[in-house]
């Protein structure tokens, strides 16, 4: 059975609080926090980008199981902030991981669900026998235009998964995707910041796709929400995943462990995946997990995952919540410099 052999995460150490951003734009931080359900977000350092974050989380994943680069035959990096428009992030990641050059690689882009799309590609390649192990990474250093509501949520982080069929810590029992043409959020070629459809991003985009994919995968596997130990949904803010979970019939206990968005913001392609890793950090053999991502444009990938006995001997020391606690606050001036929002003369 195909599953996850190992996983790794990376969260930059800088954080900016909602109060600090709201102060600059003359907004009420309490109403922003109440409305978004986000208190602070991660900010990448000046020398961090999607490539460096991808390498760091992938190295952690490989180190945890002492996996050699020659044992990986595919690398997919999902992101909406690849540093190059033309030159794949996956090539740099593969070289940095010392992967034998005979590997399949591609950069994927599907707003916030490109990381889970990479997992699906790896599953297919492992199941077909094309590869033994594949590396799927979701990583982003997302941007919001100055003064745009997105500035409160657009954050940075990464999660990497080694997908294989030997010594898996979790089995991926099923996966499906639901995709439509929905213009809720986009960024045109050459534009530095994305545009979004405001309230349009809710019902027709996030809720429709996440709900449909989740309901369908449970239905075809004869499962109900109470059959799951945990559930994790894409986290564009702290409100949407809580609401969709409630609508679907999941309890707050089932989603709390993976609800990382309040303290690191929306890490885009890594968002649902970092939450999923936070669940894996504490999961026990036999636990069943529902993971549903969402990418604007729009689509959702849903997964049913079951934890195996191997998780008990797996190295889970560097937990996601520990990484969230390691932080240093910066002010808006430093944030503007790090995110290159200052036009240099």
């Amino acid at each position: 059975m195909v599953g996850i052999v190992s996983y790794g995460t990376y969260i930059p150490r800088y954080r900016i609080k909602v109060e600090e951003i709201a102060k600059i734009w003359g907004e009420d931080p309490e109403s922003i926090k109440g409305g978004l359900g986000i208190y602070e977000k991660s900010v990448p350092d000046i020398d961090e980008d999607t490539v460096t974050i991808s390498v760091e989380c992938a190295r952690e994943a490989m180190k945890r199981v002492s996996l050699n680069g020659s044992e990986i035959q595919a690398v997919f990096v999902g992101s909406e902030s690849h540093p190059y428009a033309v030159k794949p992030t996956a090539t740099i990641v593969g070289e940095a991981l010392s992967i034998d050059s005979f590997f399949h690689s591609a950069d994927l882009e599907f707003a916030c669900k490109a990381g889970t799309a990479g997992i699906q590609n790896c599953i297919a390649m492992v199941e077909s026998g094309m590869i033994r192990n594949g590396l799927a990474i979701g990583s982003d250093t997302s941007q919001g235009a100055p003064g745009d509501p997105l500035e409160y949520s657009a954050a940075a982080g990464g999660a990497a998964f080694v997908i294989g069929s030997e010594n898996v810590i979790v089995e991926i029992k099923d996966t499906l995707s639901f995709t439509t043409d929905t213009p809720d959020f986009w960024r045109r070629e050459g534009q530095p910041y994305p545009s979004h459809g405001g309230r349009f991003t809710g019902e027709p985009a996030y809720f429709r796709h996440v709900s449909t994919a989740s309901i369908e995968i449970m239905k075809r596997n004869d499962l109900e929400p109470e059959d799951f130990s945990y559930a994790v949904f894409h986290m564009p803010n702290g409100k949407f995943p809580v609401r969709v979970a409630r609508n679907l019939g999941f309890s707050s206990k089932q989603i709390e462990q993976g609800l990382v968005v309040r303290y690191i913001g929306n890490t885009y392609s890594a968002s649902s995946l970092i939450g999923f890793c936070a669940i894996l950090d504490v999961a026990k053999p036999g636990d069943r997990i529902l993971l549903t991502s969402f990418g604007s444009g729009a689509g959702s990938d849903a997964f049913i995952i079951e934890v195996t006995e191997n998780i008990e001997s797996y190295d889970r020391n560097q937990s996601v919540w520990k990484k969230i606690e390691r932080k240093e606050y910066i002010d808006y001036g430093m944030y503007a410099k790090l995110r290159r929002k200052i036009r240099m003369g």
Partner: protein
Amino acid sequence: MIPSFWRKIRYRYNLTGTKCENCGRIYHPPRNICPECRRKSSITEVDLGDRGELLTYSIVHDAPESFKLQRPYVIGLIKLESGVVVTSQISCKPSELRIGMKVKAVFRKYGEDGEDGIIYYGTKFVPCEE
């Protein structure tokens, strides 16, 4: 700049050095020939490990143009667990520095050739958190 950087990415992306099997000396940056053994050199590549100890450092306040956004930045000498000493940027605040502190290698951006040029990546160090 691109060809000279590209030729060495193997050694910049990872801490890979060379060892002279004849005398046992390890070098970083890597050498094609051992300066001690010369024609008796027998060079192989070795992994130098990703942990080390900070031997000494300089804080650079007067930064070149491409490092202006990072100033003040830190350059240190790190003694790796393999015994090899490497020079590298330490990605942290000067106030965090302490000679003898444990550091670990990380993958970071070195710089870029302007907005339309190539981006350079490689190894830097950060203080060990554990």
